[in-house]
């Protein structure tokens, strides 16, 4: 299974990328830990997480093909 992970705003500078694929992650919490391992700096930033373009509040299981995004506070307008 493969999860597509998107980064936006300042997080693209923290991670150095816009998109990255992860395999073998069963939940959002699991993914978050993997990303903190890869980019320890990310713990200093505020962000929300969306799953398939919907903001999620708590923990959520992940399935093959899911798209997870790490979203700094919105700043449109």
């Amino acid at each position: 299974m493969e999860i597509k992970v998107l980064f936006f705003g300042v997080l693209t500078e923290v991670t150095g990328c816009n998109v990255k694929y992860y395999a073998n992650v069963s939940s959002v919490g699991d993914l978050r830990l993997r990303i903190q391992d890869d980019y320890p700096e990310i713990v200093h930033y505020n962000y929300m997480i969306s799953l398939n373009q919907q903001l999620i509040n708590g923990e959520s299981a992940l399935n093959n093909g899911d798209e997870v995004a790490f979203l700094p506070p919105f700043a449109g307008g």
Partner: protein
Amino acid sequence: MSDYLVNGPVNPELITRQISFCDEKNDSGGISVFIGRVRADKTDSKTVVAIDYSAYEEMVNSVAASIKEDIMLEFSDVRSVKLFHSIGNVKAGEISLFVLVEAGHRRQAIDACSMTVELIKEKLPVWKRELYDNDSHEWKRQ
């Protein structure tokens, strides 16, 4: 590309077109418009020359559609809600946000436009990086 995103600045001609062509039935008496522009803010020794906007495009589509639905549900007199946000580079003085709400009467047009702008600020997945005249940049919260 999203229906709601515009590459670069919003052209004033787009605004005119939207104002001229709305409401073929001629039953809307009030049109409220909000235009957001990039300010040449001065901070310390530097001045904003442009903002580089980026967006989560697929999510902008669903969030913008749901903002429009919420507004139409909340304001029974509203006939239409239009919104356009820039992505990419928008220079100081240029337009980055354009919202237009048509209603039968003025109060609902004005209140619905105001609420649409607030919902965009709160919910639309868009980010901005201010570019300064000393070639530095900064990701902004607001």
